[in-house]
């Protein structure tokens, strides 16, 4: 019997990046999603877009080659890419709301079986941090999430309904956690790929929603 091997953050990000189509416009949130840009598909090229007005930017800047005025939405210094373009903030969010982003990958505190998710406010807080997430969630053609399967104290993040205030309603299509890959369907969470050494029962035990197991369940793809 294989030892249980939860997936690391880069593996989760890579798996979602494998779903990017050639030519897609991709927006990556802060945290695990940012790691998607490290995955380079051999025969597909994607365009990275950042809500602070960057279209078609390059990888993170190496030390010493940063331009102080060229950052992504996470405030990280990035480098230029041939064919890059700059927009002001209103035009950048116009682009997002109008559906020109093919996929946004976001982090989340919770995701629900009905496609709702929550990522802007923690329990009991007066304030929140929305940033561009609500616009991306309603504007992007596909919303993918990358999150740890449970909270630090072991509570499930995959739920029947979100307990926290939601970021958007019914938009999530695909979720990668450290335990597996889940499509959100009419029937809720569909477990399609699973971390090595785990059984569907293991994953169900730490989930707050009923999972459906794909008849084609396979080990989590790494390439």
């Amino acid at each position, binding site marked *: 019997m294989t030892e249980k091997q939860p997936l690391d953050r880069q593996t989760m990000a890579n798996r979602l990046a494998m779903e990017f189509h050639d030519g897609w416009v991709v927006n990556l949130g802060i945290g695990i999603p940012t790691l998607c840009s490290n995955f380079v598909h051999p025969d597909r090229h994607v365009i990275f877009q950042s*809500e*602070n007005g*960057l279209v078609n930017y390059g990888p993170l800047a190496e030390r010493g080659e940063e331009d102080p*005025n060229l*950052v992504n*939405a996470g405030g990280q210094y990035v480098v230029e890419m041939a064919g890059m373009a700059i927009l*002001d903030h209103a035009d950048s969010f*116009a682009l997002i*709301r109008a559906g020109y982003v093919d996929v946004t990958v976001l982090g989340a505190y919770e995701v629900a079986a009905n496609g709702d998710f929550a990522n802007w406010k923690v329990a009991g807080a007066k304030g929140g941090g929305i*940033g561009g997430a609500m616009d991306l969630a309603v504007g992007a053609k596909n919303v993918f999430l990358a999150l740890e399967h449970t909270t630090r104290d072991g509570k499930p993040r995959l739920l029947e309904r979100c307990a926290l205030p939601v970021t958007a309603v019914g938009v999530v299509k695909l979720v990668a956690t450290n335990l597996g890959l889940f499509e959100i369907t009419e029937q809720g969470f569909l477990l399609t790929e699973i971390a090595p050494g785990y059984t569907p029962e293991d994953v169900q035990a730490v989930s707050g929603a009923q999972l459906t197991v794909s008849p084609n369940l396979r080990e989590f793809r790494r390439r």
Partner: protein
Amino acid sequence: MPDKVYPDFAAAVADIPDGASIMLSGFAGPGTARNLIDALYRQGAKGLTLISNTPGRWQDDRIDSGVLVKEGRVAKIHAAFTASPHPSVPSPFTDLYEAGKIEAELMPQGTLAERIRAAGAGIAAFYTPTGVGTEMADGKETRVFDGREYVLETALHADYAFVRARRADRMGNLQYHRTQRNFGPVMARAAKVTIVEVDEPVVEEGAMDPDHVHTPGIFVDRVVAVPPDGIQEEPPQR
């Protein structure tokens, strides 16, 4: 024609009264008019309303809106964040907000940008799909167009805008460098008085290709060039 070029930051912010509303450009550093914020801090205006992406962070060595917030000079803020995007990023705002000593209106960043854009476009209100079904739509009018639900949001005006750009000419035409642009163009149009600090010395009219002016000078009222010993854009942290 009135001369738009001001000799220093103090002169450019001298008339800002208590209770003024001020839009602050800037996203994660670039575009933040740190010298104007610093001058306003020294000038003393209080009871301010700020409109900006975040309520600022403030560390001893960097000036941003947080320095005004921390000193209790801000009565209200309209922003896309009322909590730090990262627990690691300090915000003088949070304690005051939790204690009820500052008001805040939180909204999605695209709604913030579009509300500012609407003010500078003579549009009173618009229907956006962002925030439908969330707390952001609570108490607001929603309406279905072509089978999809939208929420009504209104224009957001201000008395002043503080903007940072790369280059200005004497008429106030502006060019921004890379993601320094962010809120600059829309805030310059939405505010009654737009004050700009620029990285480079002010150039003569005609020095910019008309196709490559990002903000026409008719939206700009005051320009100050950042001197070599002024506050430069935050260098990468090592």
